[in-house]
């Protein structure tokens, strides 16, 4: 128990002292996960909006598939991306394996279905409300989609946050395609796993503290934004 207390003490010291190794790991984690969220939003928001507004054969099956893909196992995604990016794989020529780029791809694959499925739900709800008015005004589909995305922006921020939460906290995919290489592909989750197995609980705990604080801060910021938006009836 004393060891744990000492570890907590050391962990706080590392955080407060802004340990360079710690900061490097945090910065890479944010870079990888935020990039993955950006890619997931670029793909997932249009896909979700198209499904929300579209009426096509197989729509229900598509929605079921999309919802199911939200639960993609990170290790399976990691393995698939590994196979694609390995030298023998079809994208081996890109030489991305064991680079932050591969980690971004893996996380983007993991969270794009989350962003697409949740944004589909958000946009569809708003579309039900606006559809008749838009039809009456003969709003072109592209303008209607843009209006829906804009008016749902605060709810979609929560969707992006859900994606970020999943990305920043996952370990299975990034450890397979990134390899947890010190000063190159080591992120918070892979470092926590490694340091725990090595018995260096202080660094693992420090990273855990940062991870939880980060998650809380981002959630609080988005919640505050949504509350403000709701107060002004924009959400």
């Amino acid at each position, binding site marked *: 128990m004393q060891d744990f207390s000492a570890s907590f003490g050391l962990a706080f010291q590392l955080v407060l002292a802004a340990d360079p190794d710690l900061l490097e790991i945090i910065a890479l984690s944010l870079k990888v996960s935020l990039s993955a969220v950006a890619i997931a939003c670029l793909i997932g928001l249009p896909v979700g909006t198209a499904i929300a507004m579209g009426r096509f054969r197989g729509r229900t099956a598509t929605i079921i598939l999309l919802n199911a893909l939200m639960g993609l196992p990170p290790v399976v995604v990691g393995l698939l991306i590994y196979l694609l990016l390995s030298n023998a794989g079809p994208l081996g020529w890109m030489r991305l394996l064991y680079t932050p780029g591969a980690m971004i791809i893996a996380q983007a694959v993991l969270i794009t279905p989350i962003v697409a499925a949740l944004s589909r739900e958000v946009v569809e709800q708003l579309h039900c409300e606006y559809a008749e*008015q838009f039809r*009456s*005004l*003969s709003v072109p589909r592209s303008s209607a989609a843009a*209006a829906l995305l804009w008016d749902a922006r605060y709810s979609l921020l929560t969707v992006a946050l859900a994606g970020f939460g999943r990305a920043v906290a996952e370990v299975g995919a990034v450890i397979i395609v990134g390899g947890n290489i010190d000063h190159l592909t080591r992120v918070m989750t892979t470092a926590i796993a490694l340091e725990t197995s090595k018995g260096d609980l202080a660094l693992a705990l420090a990273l855990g503290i940062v991870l939880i604080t980060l998650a809380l801060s981002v959630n609080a910021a988005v919640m505050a934004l949504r509350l403000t938006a709701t107060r*002004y*009836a924009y959400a």
Partner: protein
Amino acid sequence: MPDGTTVSQGRTWAAPTDESECLGEAVGLVYRSGDRTLIDGIDLQIPRAGRTVVMGANGAGKSLLLRLLHGLLLPSAGHVRWGGRPLDDALRQQQAMVFQRPVLLRRSVAANIRFVLKLRGRADQARVDATLDEVGLAAHAHQPARLLSGGEQQRLALARALATDPQVLFLDEPTASLDPASTAAIETIVNRAHARGTKIMFVTHDLGQARRLADDVIFLHYGQLAEQSPAQRFFDDPVSQAARDYLDGRLVIRKSSK
């Protein structure tokens, strides 16, 4: 039978005699949902001028008829023509509709107006200001639209519809949940639009409102056209039994078809 009233298949209407007086028409209009026929073979002609008020009990098909005439719903049978042409997107752009519950964008009051003006390629600030000024909402331009009162929201919805300079304005019970002052404000705006030449198609349950607004009345009864008459004639001497019952406040309950 009053002059100018025609009888067909047990229904009556006063069609415009001159074809140039007719702006729109519905021919054999039927709308089914599942095995229920909600609009049942309506033939009518919509006069070019004036304010046409659509009346009837709940479930008579008033809102459905408006949606069919505006092209928001496709008929199961029959067709709608405006100016002799079938309804398409280009024609619908010359029409506008205000719904019972205003559908406002989650934006400011001015942004709601700007949205439609932008669609029509004329989103200059002066026009936005003039539109809001006309409906008495200029002072609320930068407020969130959804924080307006019910009456103000409906005025904004009406302003947005009128911002497109529609040839035909459909209003589906726009004052159903408004107080007398807000109702009067809406009626004033509608009358101004009518004076500028906009054809008005107005659904209401309110007999007082119908008397104030109507130049001619379409009366529906269980999805059928019971009567179409000039307003004065409709209120003084309705032809159909259904309209007489409605105006006299008698409860008419259709027996179950089982």
